């Protein structure tokens, strides 16, 4: 049977074009892939190739015709053996560029990569993981450094597919001594020194995770992870979605984030808001030893890519840490670090310590501050912040990162959306100053949030 050749769209934006030249003439045989005609668009001249085999039976639109709309029949190809003279293309409805809205009767489906049905089109409600039971078991006093090491060691004992890779993690025992003893216990197959090649080993880890392993990738600091940003976002975060759920990257990227001490601009930056921006990632930034351990273990067991932000100035702090290999802290749940009535202070990572110190100061002035340790930045515990603001009616956010489009900005939006009517004062952000971090001791101090900044902000929103 004869088939029509339609005016093709040769770019995402083309709606019409000109038939510049017919390369084949009527009666000529045509093979699939043969050039039939040349078409001029506003941008270029392109060739139209035959898809069917046969004989060019009829030219519907002569050469030189301009403004031919896309999908207009321009020629007819007869099947071999058909009488070329007799051929009239069978009239048929113009093909629909848009997909039919109503599903036509479905014949067979290709093997479905995964079960199909899911819930409605509305955005899913913000997640609210169950409140974990209060840990009442045995604890040991440990530094955050030791808690992180134990978390990794416990998970590596539990699951053979977990391994650690990064710069200086094995023989050197970790640039910040986080992986101390791991090489000795697990050997070089599972504790792997990489070359200095962040994009390469981040991507390699992601490939290994696609294949079902559970890599822990240590960045010596998150400043160096910018080299690997494309892999973290385009490969780790997006692939599950782009594969219709077939492929996930169960991988943890961990290392120190934020401001260290006198290492200046290129080695001192908080990346929390960068990663928290991205759907497909989970982002945590704990403060206490228990949270470092419990969240790292949850991150390693999580089937998704988790960005685990640590802090160099917290590694040496000691806490009571649960001594139970099944102690986990759920990702997505904030913690009330200190209960209070008059003002809410949100913080994460090292700034929790500053917020708690500020709360002490405020107490002396008769202001009772509630400090929320966010712990997770994505998913974000909206309810914890909103509930607190509904009680205190005032809020200060604290972070080391820059204020513009920072975590504090997001909290401001959340408060507007969730509890605007409860606010008695505008939210106040305490953030790193909007400059690259300076080296000079006095300037560095000025650039980084200090306890007195938090106290001042809290007094401002409390009007006292």
């Amino acid at each position, binding site marked *: 049977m004869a088939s029509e050749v339609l005016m093709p769209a040769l*770019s995402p934006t083309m709606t019409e074009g000109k038939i510049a030249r017919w390369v084949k003439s009527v009666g000529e045989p045509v093979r699939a892939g043969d050039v039939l005609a040349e078409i001029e668009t506003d941008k270029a001249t392109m060739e139209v190739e035959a898809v069917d085999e046969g004989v060019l039976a009829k030219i519907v639109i002569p050469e030189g015709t301009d403004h031919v709309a*896309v999908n207009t029949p321009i020629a007819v190809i007869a099947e071999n053996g058909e009488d070329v003279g007799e051929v009239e293309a069978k009239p048929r409805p113009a093909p629909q*560029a848009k997909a039919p809205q109503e599903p036509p009767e479905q*014949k067979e489906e290709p093997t479905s990569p995964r079960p199909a049905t899911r819930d409605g089109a*509305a955005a899913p409600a913000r997640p609210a993981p169950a409140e974990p039971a209060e840990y009442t078991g045995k604890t040991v006093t440990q530094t955050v450094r030791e808690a992180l090491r134990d978390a990794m060691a416990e998970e590596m004992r539990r699951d053979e597919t977990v391994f650690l890779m990064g710069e200086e993690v094995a023989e050197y025992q970790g640039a910040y001594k986080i992986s101390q003893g791991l090489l000795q216990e697990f050997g070089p197959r599972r504790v792997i020194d990489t070359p200095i090649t962040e994009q390469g080993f981040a991507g390699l880890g992601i*490939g*290994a995770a696609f294949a079902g392993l559970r890599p822990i990738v240590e960045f010596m600091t998150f400043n160096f992870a910018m080299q690997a940003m494309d892999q973290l976002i*385009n490969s780790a975060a997006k692939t*599950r979605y782009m594969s219709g759920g*077939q492929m996930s990257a169960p991988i943890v990227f961990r290392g120190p984030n934020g401001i260290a001490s006198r290492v200046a601009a290129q080695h001192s930056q908080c990346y929390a808001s960068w990663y928290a921006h991205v759907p497909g990632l989970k982002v945590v930034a704990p403060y206490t030893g228990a949270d470092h351990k419990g969240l790292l273990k949850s991150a390693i067991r999580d089937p998704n890519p988790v960005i685990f932000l640590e802090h160099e100035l917290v590694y040496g702090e000691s806490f009571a840490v649960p001594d139970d290999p099944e102690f986990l802290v759920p990702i997505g749940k904030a913690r009330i670090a200190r209960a209070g009535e008059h003002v809410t202070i949100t913080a994460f990572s090292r700034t929790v310590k500053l917020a708690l110190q500020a709360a002490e100061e405020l107490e002396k002035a008769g202001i009772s501050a509630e400090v929320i340790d966010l712990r997770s930045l994505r998913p974000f515990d909206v309810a914890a912040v909103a509930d607190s603001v509904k009680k205190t009616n005032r809020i200060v956010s604290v972070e080391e990162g820059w204020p513009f489009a920072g975590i504090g900005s997001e909290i401001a939006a959340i408060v507007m959306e969730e509890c605007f009517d409860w606010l008695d004062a505008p939210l106040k952000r305490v953030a790193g100053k909007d400059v690259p971090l300076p080296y000079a001791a006095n300037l560095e101090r000025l650039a980084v949030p200090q306890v007195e900044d938090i106290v001042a902000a809290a007094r401002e929103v409390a009007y006292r």
Partner: protein
Amino acid sequence: MAATRKTNRVKPAEPDVSAETLKRWYTDMLLIRRFEERAGQMYGMGLIGGFCHLYIGQEAVVVGMQAALQEGDTIVTSYRDHGHMLACGMDPKGVMSELTGRRCGYSHGKGGSMHMFSREKNFFGGHGIVGAQVPIGTGLGFAHRYRDDGRISVTYLGDGAINQGQVYESFNMASLWKLPVVYVVENNRYGMGTSVSRASARTDLYHRGIAYGIQGEQVDGMDVVAAYEAAVEAVEHARAGQGPIILEMLTYRYRGHSMSDPAKYRTKDEVNRMRTEHDPIDHLRQRLLEEHGAGEDDLKQIEKRARDIVAEAAQFAQDCPEPDPSELWTDVLAEA
């Protein structure tokens, strides 16, 4: 095309390919060719949107490579990926439905031409960022070695990707750790509109592993038998634990870089010469007729079957509905 050249000369494998095998390869290459032509047509009809990079002309590379692989070997490539998926045995209906953005597509319409995957067929994508699949493929090789499962990773990249830094980061780690990876450089002579000689200080891309101690070989990628023979050797090398190896497949894409590329950076003569003198499918057809006693009718049957499969896939991909709006929110995160 150029004869086979190697960084380290080794004895060429004995060609041992039966007429039946050649017919199967002919079938596989034809399916890719017809599929891609149809995809181009459907793009023209507005049924496929966005970017669409066709593999027409390069079929021998992927069919030759695939023939040398074992069940469980893993494959990853860039965005010119339709041919690789069909060669891996993925369902043409599922691939075409992904191109039309329908729910029956491999990614349920959420990935499109450049982002498709099949766990079942060990096809790990379909990646849209030039060169980004190379560390990922290296990681697949890492996983094979970690598990000691005797499988290898085949990591495809183009001549355009060869100058990305992460390619060399990958070469270094793969060689350092002796990972079982075959890097297949599909040199189709143009990275978008820039010829290899305008982009690369040295154009002998199979030498790009020398600094890392990786052996390379240049292969006529327009000849499926040559591609297969090189693949067998390279796969053996990687599987035997000798570390990575590079195959530079000299090939050619007949169409533009993507559908909207008029390909003004090369002459018509050049394209026509490649199509008439070096077409991998015509070449194999001749060989089957002249050297292997295949009959015209026999080949016509194969050709008709390829057309029918593609026509059916095209129809299926138009009939299948778009994804349900609820799909917008699914597959962002896996349930913890």
